[in-house]
């Protein structure tokens, strides 16, 4: 247990030491998105017709989850990849840390960073727009599951990658398109049928939709359905990641 606590706190220390880069920068990026998109699209897009929800309000939870997901992924992927490439991964491979402790320490640290970034985005947005909170438990549940999902995916990517280029490719060719095609900037009902179908195949869509439902009590699909899909994907990725760690894949030659 002490091994887990230490690895977890070391991972927290690691991202807090470069807080401007790991928290400040993503929050600033999200706020820039908020200002630019809201000014460009406000009044042109009607979200949840008849609900009275303003586009600026609609945008905030989406941007918060987008930042949360990207940063949870970045935390585990960069930490593991960096340790592997610098060789200091041996310091956590030599001690008696169980496979489960190893997995939990990395992923939970990513969850902490993801949630910090996500909620700082929400709080900073309150300077520009008032947000209702319909159900805090729903917000926290989807936030936690999303950060766990991407923390696990980041750990898988970090274990798999042999160079930073591969991590960047994963971020740019997988995470970014999936985030942008998940309904961060629009309601899925505004899309043509084909893109609606693509969105329904994207687990990030259910994450963002569920998270947003926690604020407005309105969603594109049923919140319970989103919860099941998001939980299943999170469990599958976490379990897959745990199996890789247990097998020592690309960690123990």
């Amino acid at each position, binding site marked *: 247990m002490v091994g887990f606590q230490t690895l977890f706190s070391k991972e927290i220390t690691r991202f807090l030491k470069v807080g401007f880069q790991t928290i400040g920068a993503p929050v600033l990026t999200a706020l820039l998105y908020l200002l630019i998109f809201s000014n460009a699209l406000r009044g042109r897009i009607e979200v949840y017709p008849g609900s009275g929800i303003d586009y600026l309000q609609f945008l905030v939870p989406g941007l918060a989850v987008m930042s949360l997901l990207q940063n949870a992924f970045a935390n585990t992927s960069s930490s593991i990849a960096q340790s592997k490439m610098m060789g200091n991964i041996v310091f956590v491979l*030599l001690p008696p840390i169980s496979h489960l402790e190893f997995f939990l320490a990395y992923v939970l640290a990513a969850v902490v960073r993801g949630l910090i970034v996500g909620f700082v985005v929400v709080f900073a947005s309150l300077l520009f727009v008032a947000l209702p909170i319909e159900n805090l438990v729903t917000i926290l549940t989807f936030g936690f599951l999303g950060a766990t999902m991407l923390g696990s995916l980041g750990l898988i990517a970090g274990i798999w990658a042999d160079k930073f280029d591969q991590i960047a490719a994963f971020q740019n060719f997988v995470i970014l398109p999936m985030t942008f095609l998940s309904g961060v900037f629009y309601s899925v009902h505004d899309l043509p049928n084909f893109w609606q179908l693509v969105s329904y195949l994207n687990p990030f869509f259910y994450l963002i939709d569920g998270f947003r439902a926690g604020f407005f009590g309105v969603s594109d699909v049923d919140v319970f359905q989103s919860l099941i899909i998001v939980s299943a994907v999170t469990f599958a990725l976490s379990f897959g990641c745990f199996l890789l760690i247990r097998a020592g894949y690309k960690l123990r030659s």
Partner: protein
Amino acid sequence: MNAISVRDVYKYFGTLCAVKGVTLDVLEGEFFGLLGPNGAGKTSLINMISGLSVVDSGSIEVNGSDVSKDYLRARRMLGVVPQELVFDPFLSVYQTLKFQSGYFGIKHNDSWIQEILGALGLDEKADSNMRSLSGGMKRRVLVAQALVHRPPVIILDEPTAGVDVDLRQGLWKFIRELNERGHTIVLTTHYLEEAESLCGRIGMLKKGELVVVEKTEQLLQTSEGLTIRLLVSSGDCHLPESLNSFQTKLIPGGAEIIVPNASNVEEVLAHLRVANIKYDSLQLDRRDLEDVFVSVMRSGKDG
């Protein structure tokens, strides 16, 4: 109980067999040297013992705990100083040791950390960031990291590679003390004089096979003898056939003749006189571990 027990272990990297059926026991409290040229399989074997590599076939136990099935207990028993000079650039020396203690399940370890820092001459660097340290200092921190949990078995994989004489002597003094306190030490090194003076027993690996395991003094006894080194200014030295009963070899600027004992020296000189071999100087050397190592590595038994 054996500190380390290796049973018929194989390790493959693709089609390359890096460790071939090695069986080895390192006894509790022993100072054991593992020697071999680059690529002989020393680090591969150490990595399997420490859990950094998966054992492809065979089994390894540390203090009776299997490194695969009972890996948590086996790792708790082991302290490893890796060969590569690795460090965490985010941490200071003290933080590095504090975190490493935590990884091994120890929360309050300050007094022991202070003792190791002092013994390794790191106390003034405790708050320095790892990035700012010299190579020698980083090496000291690696040794300190391996010792934070007071492991009964310590493996040092070429710990003195590229470090100055001061550190080397200080390090060996400290490691000797640990050995005297009952810690088992396994050392790999390319400095054979270190192995000769420190290790009670030596194993030699050649192309993945363990070709020799012997007490150091016995190993030196088996190689008892003298090396007669002839140096000729012309650089051209032809030894007579009458010396074929001895081990001979040509070296730059002369030749070497290895004889079993001092009484053979006169016989060799007589053969040289008869063959009218002129030489400018003659040296007599007692054979050491380096000679044993070289002859083992050149011997017919090919790994």
